[in-house]
């Protein structure tokens, strides 16, 4: 009937639901749904009843009654079946206890397309198992974590069925399985933590595991009993049958492991086969129907507990992520600097995923937490992400496969989750997960499922069940949807925060600009308006000087008025200058420095009558800048040099320049009175005079103008000085 030839290339297509055979510890009879005539019989019926299979075929079900199924002569098997049909369920009557040849049996009724399946199997359990199942369930559920729960289940199932080894086997993402809990006889080698390749339990088998929550293979060494029928081309579907014969390939598999009896309980979580409780016995061991049902119940309780606990644990993780996000969000709100908020508190962006390291690239600065690759590697990775990803979120648990340089640091960052904050990927956060399973212990080499025997290719499952270690390289734990959600959440918050800060800064900037403009306008207007009355004062004073009736003393006073007015006028002019530096646009042009310096020197030497001062000119590199303003800078500095060295015996002023690292640096050096270091910071401030220059004319604005002009040219100005031995002022402008 079943001529399907099975080998490892097609075992996932093997029609295991229609094996045409049953396990021979029980027998099977199928009757047609319409007339209740016997359509299929297992050949081994003759071992249990005094009749052969062929004798029963096409007979009414009632004919079974004569084979003394039951001592009680009133019992009619067809009535039992009809009762079930009327009730539309066999739950209440199955298993129905019977006695056959003085031995107790269970009758289990199920449906198979057009037929009713009637399976008979021996009763071996002498006591009522119900109460111990309740106890088992409650002690199992005491496990706090999922792992405790699984271990508890293994322990309880072992108590219930007494098999040598109980394993809880979990299917992982790619279909391969791992033993996540185990309870066994002490002398057995542990399978805990072993991984099994996906092909060990083919797809259609998994479907069956979802339909039949328990599955017993009573003895791998017994001969199966064929099913006989007169119906052609329609093999009996044994999907729901509990005696269904086992695929030869699976029998071989079990034999290879030295297993005589196998029992499995399906764990179905949310419609998916989460895993199995796989039970092995190293000698033949039948499990009574009631004990199997008890195990099934344990499996169902475990399944729902798993669903609940897993959801609970997931929720806990999600809650922790959310907590971290909320806390960071608070920091973002309060902290001045975004990066500080992300990394400098107890809870950081490392806590919003299960990553073990994180790198934040913000405004061209790199900050890291936890285990991260070397800085240069992070920069390289970031620039790779920038060119190769157009999604703001990118993640992989196998970085080095996509980005080969990642091999270097796979131990730290086999997996990455990156999140670009800005569109141009300049601002980016990258989370890292380490290489997760350095070793997977396979139960048998998954790469070599086929063995060769005696020169012939014998297609059978692997014979070797030696642990075969495979080093799974370059792979991290996967990124969970919860982690991605969490990252997206923080991204949103960061972006909002950045936008908020940006507009705050823009606002502040606008205000500053307005204040600055106002101040400039103010100083300009004030200076201007001050000059008019000042001019009047001076002019009247000068007119008074011409008045013959004023005596010598009066004339002296008038002179003082004129001097005062002159000084004030100078001050006002300087302030006007300063204001104008702030107001005018800078037009960058090439400034011929030898020419300008010469002009200034001539002017300054004349103004200060500095004929005795020696001038040494070094190399004078041309500068790029606003010609008028540059001239102003050098006029002020050279004037100062001359002014503050005028009282020494041999004043010496040196002007030179040199190029250093993209800058042209001018030095104006004098051997004058110098500046006390105590005043270093105040030298460039407006209206600051030093103690030692009280007697020298000055406005206190000159150096402020110098500083303002240089800064507007994006340059630097500073000085070195020693009291009573001279000062050296430096002006550095970008060399373009």
């Amino acid at each position, binding site marked *: 009937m079943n001529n399907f030839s099975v080998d490892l290339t097609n075992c996932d297509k093997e029609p295991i639901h229609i094996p045409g055979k049953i396990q021979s510890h029980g027998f099977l009879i199928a009757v047609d749904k319409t007339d209740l005539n016997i359509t299929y019989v297992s050949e081994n019926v003759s071992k249990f009843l005094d009749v052969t299979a062929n004798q029963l075929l096409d007979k009414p079900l009632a004919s079974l009654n004569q084979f003394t199924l039951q001592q009680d002569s009133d019992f009619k098997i067809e009535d039992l079946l009809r009762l079930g049909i009327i009730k539309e369920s066999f739950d209440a009557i199955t298993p129905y206890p019977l006695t056959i040849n003085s031995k107790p049996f269970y009758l289990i009724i199920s449906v198979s397309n057009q037929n009713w399946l009637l399976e008979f199997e021996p009763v071996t359990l002498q006591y009522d198992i119900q109460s111990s199942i309740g106890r088992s369930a409650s002690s199992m559920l005491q496990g706090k974590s999922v792992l405790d729960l699984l271990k508890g289940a293994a322990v309880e199932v072992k108590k219930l069925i007494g098999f040598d080894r109980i394993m809880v086997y979990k299917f992982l993402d790619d279909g391969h399985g791992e033993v996540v809990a185990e309870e066994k006889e002490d002398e057995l080698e542990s399978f805990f933590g072993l991984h099994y390749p996906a092909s060990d339990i083919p797809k259609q088998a998994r479907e069956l595991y979802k339909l039949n929550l328990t599955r017993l293979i009573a003895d791998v060494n017994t001969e199966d009993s064929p099913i006989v029928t007169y119906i052609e081309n329609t093999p009996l579907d044994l999907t729901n049958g509990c005696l269904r014969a086992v695929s030869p390939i699976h029998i071989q598999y079990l034999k290879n492991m030295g297993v005589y009896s196998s029992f499995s309980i399906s764990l179905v979580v949310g419609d998916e086969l989460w895993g199995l409780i796989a039970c092995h016995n190293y000698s033949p061991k039948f499990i009574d129907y009631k004990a199997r049902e008890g195990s099934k119940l344990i499996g169902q309780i475990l399944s729902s507990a798993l669903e609940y606990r897993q959801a609970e644990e997931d929720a806990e993780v999600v809650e922790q992520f959310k907590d971290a996000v909320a806390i960071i969000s608070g920091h973002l709100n309060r902290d001045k600097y975004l990066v500080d908020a992300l990394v400098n508190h107890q809870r950081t962006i490392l806590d919003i995923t299960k990553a073990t390291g994180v790198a934040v690239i913000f405004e061209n600065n790199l900050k890291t937490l936890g285990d991260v690759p070397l800085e240069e590697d992070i920069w390289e990775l970031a620039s790779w992400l920038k060119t190769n990803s157009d999604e703001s979120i990118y993640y992989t648990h196998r970085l080095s496969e996509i980005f080969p340089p990642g091999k270097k640091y796979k131990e730290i960052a086999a997996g990455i989750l990156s999140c670009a904050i800005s569109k141009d990927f300049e601002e980016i956060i990258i989370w890292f997960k380490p290489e997760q399973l350095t070793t997977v212990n396979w139960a048998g080499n998954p790469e070599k499922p086929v063995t060769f025997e005696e020169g012939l290719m014998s297609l059978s499952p692997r014979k070797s069940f030696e642990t075969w270690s495979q080093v799974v390289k370059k792979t991290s734990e996967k990124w969970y949807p919860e982690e991605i959600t969490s990252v997206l959440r923080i991204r949103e918050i960061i972006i909002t925060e950045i936008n908020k800060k940006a507009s705050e800064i823009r606002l502040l900037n606008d205000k500053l600009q307005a204040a600055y403009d106002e101040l400039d306008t103010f100083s300009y207007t004030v200076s*201007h308006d001050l*000059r*008019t*009355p000042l*001019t*009047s004062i*001076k*002019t*009247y004073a*000068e*007119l008074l000087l011409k008045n013959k009736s004023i005596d010598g003393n009066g004339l002296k006073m008038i002179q003082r008025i*004129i001097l005062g007015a*002159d000084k004030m*006028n100078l001050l006002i002019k300087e302030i006007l200058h300063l204001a*104008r530096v702030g107001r005018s646009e800078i037009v960058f042009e090439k400034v011929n420095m030898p020419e300008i310096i010469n002009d200034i020197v001539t002017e300054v030497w004349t103004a200060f009558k500095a004929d005795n001062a020696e001038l040494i000119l070094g190399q004078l590199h041309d500068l790029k800048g606003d010609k008028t303003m540059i001239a102003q800078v050098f006029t002020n500095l050279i004037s100062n040099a001359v002014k503050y060295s005028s009282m020494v015996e041999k004043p010496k002023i040196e002007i030179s320049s040199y190029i250093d690292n993209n800058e042209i640096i001018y030095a104006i050096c004098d051997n004058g009175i110098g500046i006390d270091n105590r005043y270093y910071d105040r030298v460039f401030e407006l209206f600051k005079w030093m103690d030692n220059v009280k007697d020298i004319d000055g406005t206190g604005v000159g150096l402020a103008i110098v500083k303002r002009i240089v800064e507007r040219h994006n340059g630097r100005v500073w000085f070195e000085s020693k009291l009573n031995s001279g000062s050296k002022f430096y002006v550095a402008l970008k060399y373009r």
Partner: protein
Amino acid sequence: MKTPDIFYVEDDTDYAFFMQTAVSEVKDSLNLTIVEDGTEALRRLQSFEESKIKPKLILLDLNLPGLSGIDLLKIIRDIPFLRSTPVILFSTSDNPDDVKACMEFGANAYLTKPDGYDNLVKCVHSVHDFWFNQHLRLN
């Protein structure tokens, strides 16, 4: 009305006084007419056209209440009768922008108000020498 040699618009009475003094010192015979605000200046300027009286030189203070020196300058340049009359803007401001604007609107010169009386006398001297001698030559 006597033809003014110099028509001067200046709101600052002090400066008007200095100018008067300086002008007399430079050349006593020079006739200086001073008006104190833009509106009055405008009225006078228009009357010049009617009475065919033409000043030899117009001096305008830049910062005036109401009509400014530049406004007056524009008006003068629109009066055909006065088109050939030299106009000098006279201001405390040495802001290049002000200078530029005045020259663009057709000022013949821009003078920064000299600091102090002695400087003012010097300034008036130069103005007189340049504009009046030239004027004579042109005549």
